[in-house]
């Protein structure tokens, strides 16, 4: 028997925890109680599997542990007695009910931080300790967040079901926002250094793929999945050996994952064929423009500008306007771009990339003093070590 690697353990738990939760909720009739059983089973797995190996049927193993715990509780609780018979029956292959689970975890009546934590715990099988480590907050904080959310699900009777067709669009957007936030959290906090902490971008990709598989007729989950994969296909080239940021124009494009880029392009094309554009599809299309350009000089900025216009129409935001201004700089020139950027001062003064973008444009316009001042302001607004290093370098050398 070979012992599982950390990655294998993570993958197997993630593949089965959500399924187990989804099959237990209807049996015990209560989201919160089912979640407790799954969490116990996952904790047990994380204790046993690293030393005993992953069993042939991890799903049956987890189910057995959850069932034993469930029976203990049922004996103590009279009102669950009629559920006993149901729990006695062995696990049968069931329809994948994880979509209901996701919609409950991401219900708009729950605060965003709780949606994220709950989704990771219930659908991906993260333990409270793993969540605390991933988000750099005390375990007690995560624990409270989860407990409060579960109490609200029960007390306010947040339903366990797929929303009706008239609500599905809004509710799907809410779920995708949670997955996207999770991806960003993982993507931005990662640096070149190999860390043993959990890679949240993995969980985000897993969730996006799951949503795409369970909602094949919705184009936006496919868009989000393509978006995540297009980022990940190029992720290893974002940093050099010294953990310094390598900007897009300097990245070694031959080392991008071109199979993944091509696959994401096909995924996006299939989604686009449904002719229901949305913010994730458009953002993925912008990334595809970058990823598919053989060289930096080949970047199709006109196409990117059109896509940003579309994105602004679908989901207006000052940050998107900032990105659009960058594209405008390449299509028309730095004067036009700077005018656009300056118009965002009131909205984005606290955002480091606003100042860094201004610095870049001022440098192009032959104002190095103004550029340095703007980079200083950017520096004062970010804690990210890699970004700080890049800004310092620019201030010192240009």
């Amino acid at each position, binding site marked *: 028997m070979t012992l599982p690697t950390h990655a294998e353990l993570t993958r197997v738990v993630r593949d089965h925890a959500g399924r187990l939760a989804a099959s237990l909720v209807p049996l015990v009739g209560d989201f919160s109680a089912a979640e407790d059983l799954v969490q116990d089973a996952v904790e047990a797995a994380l204790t046993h599997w690293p030393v005993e190996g992953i069993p042939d049927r991890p799903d049956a193993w987890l189910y057995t542990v959850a069932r034993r715990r469930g029976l203990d509780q049922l004996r103590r609780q009279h009102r669950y007695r009629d559920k006993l018979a149901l729990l006695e029956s062995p696990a049968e292959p069931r329809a994948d009910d994880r979509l209901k689970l996701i919609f409950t975890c991401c*219900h708009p*009546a729950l605060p965003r931080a709780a949606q994220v934590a709950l989704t990771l715990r219930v659908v991906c099988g993260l333990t409270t300790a793993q969540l605390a480590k991933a988000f750099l907050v005390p375990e007690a904080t995560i624990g409270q967040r989860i407990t409060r959310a579960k109490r609200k699900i029960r*007390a*306010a*009777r*947040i*339903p366990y079901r797929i*929303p*009706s067709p008239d*609500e599905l669009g809004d509710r799907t957007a809410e779920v995708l926002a949670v997955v996207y936030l999770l991806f960003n959290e993982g993507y931005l906090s990662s640096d070149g250094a190999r860390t043993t902490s959990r890679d949240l971008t993995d969980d985000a990709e897993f969730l996006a793929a799951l949503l795409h598989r369970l909602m094949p007729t919705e184009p936006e989950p496919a868009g989000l999945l393509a978006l995540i994969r297009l980022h990940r296909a190029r992720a290893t080239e974002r940093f050099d050996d010294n953990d310094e940021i390598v900007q897009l124009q300097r990245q070694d494009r031959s080392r991008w994952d071109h199979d993944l880029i091509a696959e994401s392009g096909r995924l996006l094309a299939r989604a686009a064929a449904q002719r229901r554009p949305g913010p994730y599809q458009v953002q993925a299309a912008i990334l595809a423009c970058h990823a598919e350009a053989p060289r930096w000089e080949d970047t199709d900025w006109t196409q990117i500008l059109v896509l940003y216009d579309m994105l602004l129409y679908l989901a207006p935001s000052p940050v998107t306007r900032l990105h659009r201004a960058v594209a405008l700089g390449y299509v028309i020139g730095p004067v036009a771009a700077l005018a656009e950027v300056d118009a965002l001062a009131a909205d984005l003064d606290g955002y480091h990339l606003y100042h860094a973008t201004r610095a870049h444009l001022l440098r192009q316009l032959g104002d190095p003093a103004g550029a340095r001042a703007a980079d200083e302001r950017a520096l004062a607004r970010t804690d990210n070590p890699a970004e700080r290093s890049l800004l310092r370098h620019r201030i010192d050398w240009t």
Partner: protein
Amino acid sequence: MKYVLLFVETEEFEAELAALEGPDRQAAYAKVQQWFDDHREVITHHTKLLAGDTATTMRLDRDEPLVSDGPFVEGKEIVSGYAEIDVADLDEALRVARSWPACPVVEIRPAMD
């Protein structure tokens, strides 16, 4: 499952309503009436409260009850009425609340059985 929809008024909303002329005001009231008619089957009871400046608040957590003028929180948003509804779950409560045609804030609070 019973939920109480607490209707919350803002100063802006109050001012807008006060500025409405006869027929427009009639139309605004008619919309509210229509909403109550549309949801007659799930509404168990409801009440419209008089303006916040008619409220009196009593604090009982000190030696002597303390009576003061005005609603219990001083702020720009005050509760102006409520409706108790009996529906299956929060999503149904949200659906009922979504079509509410008057004041701009509604708190949806589950009620004890």
